[in-house]
């Protein structure tokens, strides 16, 4: 292999690629990236076996096609520190030579052919979404995924296509976030029935891609993996096995106690009322009466807090307890200035709605 790279373009590619290279792994080859030069183009791949990136590098001239597998952190450091505009990469007997105007590096890599395959994007996309829309959707759901649950399905985000829109759902068993994302084009019929669970890690990586307004993400759904292509990057990820809970059943539809509240004001109120929570009493109490909403918290050994705010409410008075952290989490991602809070009884979950597409179900806690 013999390829001339534009240093800046290569550095940008490696910046994204190194984010999936695992820092600790029993398989040393995964600490490397695979550089494959075709007749005209050069692809760099990195994977941690869960998520893989296949990056098409721009501004290259290929002198001789080939393949080389080199340690990612070393290569990235060399490229970062170099001052040349063009770097020449040459593969020789499993080693990689990097030449600048005044510099010459040789790094030893692995035998070609041993790197796990990171697939590229081939054929037609199943669905297409605007990158920014998707990223906004991810931000609204990602926080609600379970962190280390033995119910594996909860460690990911459910993708479901319904009415020509993409539904993203995440839950950890105590709360549930659901959002809808518009598709850029109508999905073909096969894809329309798909229900898959994408690991939270992949979703977080998608969220990290730098985006411009017009970028469109093409998605290909397989049985075992999902391929997401955006500009010159293809992200592949394996899917989570398991059944996602029947979430529709737990979204209440019969609530009559409804309030419209200001996101910012409530966020501040919840935060302040949560200041005195302790290990034993973690909840905050919402007391809704005629015209006032009181956030309060009482911890036997620390003290108590009370924050009042006026509301326009005409229904029955109600008291309900929530975990303030779960409340804060959702208020942070709500994009609108106001949101709706709907309640049923003290022992039934609270429902938060923002705009037409976002919905959050929050289990109450018993304050005794």
């Amino acid at each position, binding site marked *: 292999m013999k390829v001339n790279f534009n240093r800046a373009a290569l550095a940008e590619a490696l910046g994204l690629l190194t984010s999936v290279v695992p820092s*600790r*792994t*029993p*398989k040393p*080859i*995964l600490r490397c990236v695979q550089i494959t030069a075709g007749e005209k183009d050069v692809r760099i791949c990195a*994977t941690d*076996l*869960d998520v893989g990136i296949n990056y098409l590098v721009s501004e290259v001239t290929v002198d001789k096609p080939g393949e080389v597998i080199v340690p990612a952190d070393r290569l990235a450091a060399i490229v970062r520190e170099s001052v040349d505009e063009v770097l020449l990469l040459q593969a020789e007997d499993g080693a990689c030579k990097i030449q600048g105007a005044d510099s010459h590096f040789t790094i030893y890599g*692995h*035998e070609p*052919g*041993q*790197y*796990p*395959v990171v697939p590229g994007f081939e054929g037609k996309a199943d669905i297409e979404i605007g990158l920014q829309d998707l990223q906004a959707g991810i931000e609204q759901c990602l926080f609600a995924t379970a962190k*280390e649950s*033995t119910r*594996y*399905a909860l*460690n990911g985000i459910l993708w479901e296509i319904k009415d020509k829109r993409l539904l993203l759902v995440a839950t950890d068993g105590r709360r549930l976030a659901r959002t809808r994302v518009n598709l850029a084009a109508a999905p073909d019929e096969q894809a329309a029935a798909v229900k898959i669970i994408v*690991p939270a890690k992949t979703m977080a990586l998608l969220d990290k891609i730098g985006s411009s307004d017009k970028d469109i993400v093409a998605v290909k759904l397989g*049985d*075992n*993996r999902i391929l997401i292509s955006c500009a010159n990057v293809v992200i592949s990820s*394996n*899917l*989570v*096995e*398991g059944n996602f809970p029947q979430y529709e059943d737990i979204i209440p539809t019969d609530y009559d106690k409804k309030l419209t509240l200001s996101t910012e004001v409530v966020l501040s109120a919840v935060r302040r009322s949560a200041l005195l929570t302790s290990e034993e009493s973690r909840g905050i109490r919402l007391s809704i009466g005629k015209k006032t909403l009181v956030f309060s918290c009482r911890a036997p050994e620390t003290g108590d807090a009370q924050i009042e705010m006026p509301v326009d409410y005409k229904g029955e008075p109600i008291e309900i307890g929530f975990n303030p952290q779960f409340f804060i989490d959702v208020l942070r991602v709500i994009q609108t200035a106001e949101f709706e809070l709907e309640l049923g009884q003290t022992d039934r979950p609270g429902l938060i709605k923002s705009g037409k597409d976002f919905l959050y179900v929050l289990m109450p806690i018993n304050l005794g």
Partner: protein
Amino acid sequence: MSLKEIFCQDKPMSILQRAFAANKLAHAYIFAGPEGVGKFKTAREWAKMLLCKSPVGKKTEKKRSPLSGDEQRATSDDIFADSCGSCQSCRLLEAGSHPDFNPVYKELRQFTKDGKDKKPPLDLPIDVIREFFIEQVSKKPTLSEKKVFVVSEAEKLNASSQNCLLKVLEEPPEYCSIILLCTRLERLLPTTKSRCQTIRFSTLDEERIIEKLKEMGLEDVPAQYFARLAGGSLGRACRWADLELAGANLYRAKKDLINSLAGYEYAEALDRAQQLLDESKKIAAAWAKLDKATSKSDINRRTQKTLIQIIISALHDAMKLNITTGHGLVNFDQKEQIESIAGRFDPEQSAEKIADTYETMRWIDSNVNEKLIFEQLLLNLAVSDKIVVSI
């Protein structure tokens, strides 16, 4: 390497092959048997075959012919499924970078989330099981249609690790194949055992081991000695041979040890213990250079166990010599010394001493000071009928 090259394990192999041909593979197996008889090799090659894109000899879908049961079994025996060795899956597995082959071993601890600065563990910790097993199980296979998990040293799974595994062992996802490698079945909880199918691996032929050791470059006498000492474990014999070839002088150490066992005074015992300890440290150092994957404390323990094994073999030989003609002694090369030991202990005494020595072997795993272990051991075997040291 392929499944065909695994020798002396015909029975486990035929169980696996038959289950595979009948499409009745269990989701979890325990490969039980002594150390170094090819459990891991078999598991790895089996995994290679399961993951292979175009396995050789795979039974094609046939309609059940009206043959009698016996004949049908004969046909399925004939088909020996094996990996092709050339597809991408096989190549990646050989290179150790197959995404769907997951070996689980205790040294993985250093790769767990907060395991970076922790010492290599002595048992298989729960962090490793969680991160490298349970979390991985839920992820669908990427390259092949299956996913294989091989847990080495399953006898070192502590109770919490085993309990944590139960759910996965009970009903792993469709694509999962789990193999636990275990040398001591009694260490596994009944709940673990009942969820797996156990396949027993037997010891190997001495001749095959000698042949192999000679191939490695060992002389006739040491080769035969190590093969007999290993008691049918090729893995152990090979490791000793490696040590010998690397210049650890294990064979010489053994000769010295047997020489001194042949007769030393009670007063000398402590000095001899010190010598033995020094020798053990030297061997362990050489061992650690050869085997970088295993933790140092583990290597120390294995070295000490090897030395104690040598002592046990001598006592065993002495016992044999007293009862029979002394055919097939492990220490055939030092018959005189064995005779002198046999002169000191009658068979019953030898049996007692062997029991005591095995007891000291157990202490090694319970973190008893190594010097004390050797001292106790040698005091117990010294020439003296006046002072009896009870354990």
